[in-house]
């Protein structure tokens, strides 16, 4: 792999991940959004794989493969099962309309580039130049989380956000130890499972997954 191809590949994969995040603001069908999440997860894991291959690091390659299974396999499957459980959860109900969301996404991407200039200039490697894309996914994911009114789509928003952080982590952290990476992956998986159980209980108690029903606790 030449340096130029390597840099191109990183750009391409991070670009796919960001486009997937923005597209989730545009699509309304939750099944389609979960598929976009899987594409994004695959792109993030592939970034880790490319970096691992480039550095000939076995542990990084193993971790990236594991991340691929988790982000493009297990988590999307769990979510699809959740979506198919409740008929009323198939459509998202964004609190902000699509065109306003896309404008917001553009502003957030600009903000991500503006706030990470110090991070980019610290290192001359091709990885660090892609880091702003990771931050852009974090911000867009957070926006998606904050503006969704149904439990499964909030959960998807959280995972978009987390994928952004994972992308920054593989690009920035050359050597966070394997134990830590595994701990992080386990924590995220457990958090998703906890939220899935809560969603199932919500379906039983409320008969719907509309978070607008969660307005009983207030001052």
């Amino acid at each position, binding site marked *: 792999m030449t340096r130029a191809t390597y840099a191109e590949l990183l750009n391409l994969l991070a670009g796919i991940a960001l486009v997937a995040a923005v597209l989730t603001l545009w699509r309304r069908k939750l099944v389609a959004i979960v598929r976009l999440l899987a594409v994004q997860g695959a792109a993030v894991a592939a970034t880790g794989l490319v970096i691992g291959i480039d550095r000939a690091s076995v542990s990084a390659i193993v971790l990236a493969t594991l991340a691929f299974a988790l982000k493009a396999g297990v988590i999307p499957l769990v979510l699809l099962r959740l979506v198919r459980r409740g008929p009323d959860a198939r459509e998202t109900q964004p609190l902000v309309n699509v065109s306003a969301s896309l404008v917001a996404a553009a502003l957030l991407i600009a903000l991500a580039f503006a706030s990470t*200039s110090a*991070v980019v200039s610290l*290192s001359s490697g091709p990885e660090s130049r892609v880091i702003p894309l990771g931050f852009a996914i974090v911000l867009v994911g957070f926006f998606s989380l904050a503006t969704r009114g149904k439990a499964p789509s909030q959960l998807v928003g959280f995972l978009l956000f987390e994928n952004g952080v994972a992308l920054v*982590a593989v690009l920035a952290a050359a*050597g966070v130890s394997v134990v*830590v990476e595994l701990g992080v992956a386990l924590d995220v998986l457990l*958090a998703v499972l906890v939220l899935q159980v809560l969603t199932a209980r919500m379906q039983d108690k409320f008969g719907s997954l509309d978070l607008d029903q*969660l307005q009983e606790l207030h001052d």
Partner: protein
Amino acid sequence: MLLLFVLFPIAPAVAAAACGWQPWVGRVAVATSGLLVVGGGILAARVLDNGPQTFDTLLRADALSAFMVILIGSVALLASWFSIPYLTAELTHHHTTARGAQLYGILINAFIATMVFAVLVDNIAVMWVTIEGTTIVTAFLVGHRRTRHSLEASWKYVILGSVGIVLAFLGTVLVAYAAAHTHGGGGGEPSLSWTSVVEIAHQLDPGVMRLAVVLLFLGYGTKVGLAPMHTWLPDAHSQAPAPVSALMSGALLSVAFYAILRVKVIADLALGPAFSRTLLIIAGLLSLVVATSLIIAQRDYKRLLAYSSIEHMGIVALAAAIGTPLALSAALLHMLGHGIGKSVAFLGSGEIALTEGTTAIGEVHGLVARRPVIGVSFGLSLLGLLGLPPFVLFATEIAIINAGFAQGLGWVMAIAAVLLLVVFGAVLLHAKQMLFGIPDEHERRTPTATAFARPLLLGLAAFTALGISIWPIQQLLHTAARIVAH
């Protein structure tokens, strides 16, 4: 030796998993929590004599860690002791099932173990993993009752808690990135051990560190319940079972603040003290304002206690912002005092809620006359939390305000003092009616069961004793404070 501390609370968790929840499992949990306090004391003595203790490369205990172990153990002791009659009552009233009680027994002890782990790990990334772990183990504890309200509370808790903590992870990644690109390092594998990051902290790139510190403060600040990331806290703390509320409020908030203190040491070396001071002053004052305004018109006594926790964490944040050894000693003592006092208040509120069947302030009257034990202990814990002598928070609040004036933060301290006075008046008004109001006809004179009363009285005794003298822990406090102070 250090590993033992994490294993102590695992024992009752395993017992609960194997045999289901039984009163003897609860008593084992009380004993292991007691061991944490005693062991924390022994650890403190060894640290003060021989310097920081390590186990493998994973665990490391300095004076600050030893202090936190004692804090967690004290709160865990009260909460575990109270859990025994609490679960027995829940089972008799069919509020929970044998399975629910078993899950409770496993999770609450796993929760204590995770907190102890968090204050003993050296690596800041592993510390992150353990603090995220506390969210996972407590999620089902908050939802223990399985009502609509507790479900709503646990959803908000897990979503907001996870978002916050993922931000803290992003911050940790940036610290690792900065550490890998120091002038001397040249892109090698950085060690994320707190001690080695502190050693190279002055070489870390300030631009990257500014972003990292903001993310870390935002992330761990969410777990501390600092405004404006506090919105999950009143729901979770008011819906959780009383002993869990005591642990979450008395211990977990302080454990999360411990993470902020560790980050602050790195931040102050890399960026100078002004940067973290500004962030902490904003978060501290905002928390005090939010807590004060929502305490004034509060109608639910468990939520009142939750907002009081936000208020106290705001005070601790301001003390950390001052940053002198004196202010930090006061902050640490404040965390311990708040941990014990708030546990008594939350446990008392749990007994009141069980017996009266309501958490509305307006529906509880004349507790002191009807049920003197619970009325007086709940009332005294509230007075202590408001900062009245002889309780310990009186001394710490005075010390923090004095230290603030001495550091030229007079205007911040003046605003804080005014807000504290408003809270004082508002809580007294609420408490007056609950404690001394004229009871309705249906409100009974049910006596407080001794099993509930014992842990409350022990907590009150400790709360008062801390206010009278702190000599056994004075040296520990000073040494721990000097680790963080600049």
